[in-house]
């Protein structure tokens, strides 16, 4: 039976772990503008990046955006997931496909559409000006709000489908029993549905949080050049600066922060609900 996992393990080892080891080795090298990379074995890049207020701010911005977007996504996704999980209709598979549909459109294409929507001459401003609600166009593009909107829209299907799968497995009888015992809808949700759906909430939140931490296209296209998150900063170092050692260092810092929060979040979820 153990052999069944071999192909997957080999794939991950070959295409993820292998390049990660190479990337980590690169992060220990030194950058030189003319030679680009000089062989070294030093943690200087890590020390410099961690001590640089610029990167500290970017990490905090990335973390804040990821947490905010995850929370917003959860709040928006849960009702939809509940409805989908409880849906008993022959159209259910079509609804699932419709939920998945946004994922079929690439991030860049989707962001380009939003640019047409949010632009000064875009649909929103044109409509508001057309009905004389505003005189001057609103600044919607290149703002953190636009990024939050964009990111939440991108990750919403992941959260909905993950939670819906768990809600589907919660017997409806439990809700009926709670109602029979006099619990209000709100109380039933709070004391029965929510605690039982925690595995889905935890899995969906972790998945969405990881995706938000690695946001690139949405941050660049909707946030504009002044809005900085970690993925664009890594791209900057690798591609614009040709500074692979620093790019690799930032990539590992992002990985470390994402993994720390994911692991601590998972442990906190597990502890909180095993104690109840």
């Amino acid at each position, binding site marked *: 039976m153990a052999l069944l996992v071999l192909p997957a393990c080999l794939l991950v080892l070959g295409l993820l772990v292998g390049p990660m080891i190479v990337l980590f080795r690169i992060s220990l090298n030194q*950058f030189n*503008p*003319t*030679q*680009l990379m000089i062989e070294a074995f030093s943690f200087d890049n890590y020390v410099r990046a961690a001590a640089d207020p*610029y990167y500290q701010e970017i990490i905090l911005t990335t973390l804040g955006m990821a947490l905010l977007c995850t929370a917003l996504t959860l709040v928006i996704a849960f009702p939809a997931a509940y409805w989908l999980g409880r849906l008993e209709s022959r159209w259910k598979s079509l609804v699932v496909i419709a939920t998945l549909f946004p994922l079929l459109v690439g991030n860049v294409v989707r962001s380009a559409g939003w*640019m047409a929507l949010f*632009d*000064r*001459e875009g649909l929103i401003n044109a409509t508001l000006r057309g009905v004389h609600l505003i005189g001057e166009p609103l600044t919607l593009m290149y703002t953190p709000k636009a990024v939050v909107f964009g990111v939440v829209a991108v990750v919403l299907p992941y959260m909905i489908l993950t939670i819906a799968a768990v809600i589907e497995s919660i017997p409806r009888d439990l809700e009926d029993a709670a109602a029979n015992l006099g619990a209000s809808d709100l109380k039933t949700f709070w004391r029965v549905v929510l605690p039982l759906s925690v595995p889905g909430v935890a899995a969906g939140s972790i998945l969405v949080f990881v995706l938000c931490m690695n946001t690139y296209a949405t941050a*660049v*296209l909707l946030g*504009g*050049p*002044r809005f*900085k998150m970690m993925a664009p*900063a890594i791209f*900057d170092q*690798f*591609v*614009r*600066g*040709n*500074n692979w050692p620093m790019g690799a260092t930032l990539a590992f810092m992002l990985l470390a922060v994402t993994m720390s929060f994911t692991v601590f979040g998972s442990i906190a979820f597990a502890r909180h609900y095993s104690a109840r």
Partner: protein
Amino acid sequence: MISRRHFLSASMGAAAAFASNSPHARAEANQVIVGTWGGDYAQLLSDLIDKPLLAPQGIEVLQDVANADPRKTKLLAERQSRRGSMDVACLSDSDAYIIAGMNAFEAVDGKKVPRLDKVFAELRTETAIPHIYSAQVILYNVNQVKTPPASYADLWDPKWRGKVGLADILYLQNTLAAALAGGGGVSNFDPAEQKLMELRSLDVKLYPSNETLASALKSEEVWLTVMWLARGFMWKKAGIPLSHVVPKEGAASIIFEASVPRNARNKEGGFAYLGAMLDPKAQAAFADKMGYVPTVSDAVLPEDIASQIALSEADRAKLLKPDYKYQTERSQRTLDFWNKQFKG
């Protein structure tokens, strides 16, 4: 249910597809893989060079379309490999300088590219052919700007507060413009740092790409920018009411070059491609469509096109060629300042 016959035919098909990608099969087909930008540039290469000039020689051209940054990264990543993925790499002069410095390109000479003797001497390098070039100028909206600025320094006039827009991807060129405005030059970017901070306090607008900058110029969100004359020509053709000024400090040149990587699989085909890129008719057609000036002396431009995209004799005399060594050595400081201070 997959039958044995189906399985065998699918396997053989896959094997044939694999074999067609092998170097041997590629050599037989005499394919040349050209790493190029997409859009109009790729289309014009196809229409003016690939089909009319290379196909009759039995050379099939495949385009590997990407922005310069991924192409540069690919060249760097592959430079230790015996076989690279491109036979021709198109890059800007600044990018090509960096990659050439890593010994990743073959030398170019008159034997490999016979038309090299027609190339303007000041545009030649040891490892590339200059395909097209343009100059960095000030573009302004003719409806909004009645008295256009005469120099880069004039863009710092408070009357243009909030009306100057810059493309983030051109950080190096914008830094050079700021250096020139502050009394610096191609070999002295020091004054740029103070000037950029002053521009920031004048509410300069930043856009992630040239296309988003064009959109802002069209909507009149901004009225002035620093840009290639060729881009201005294309944007004018697209209906944006623009005109240009060659700044008093001088216009810096941008040259788009092509090289053959040292690990190219079809070097002969690559050099044949480089030669075709210097064809005078193709060069004139690039000028007509994209506004970039030919790099060979025997390409003749129609009067009306030449007047819009070429510099006057006096301006040509002031054309500033980047100091590649200086700007490469300073590259990390330039990028860090742009990101951390100017945009920060």
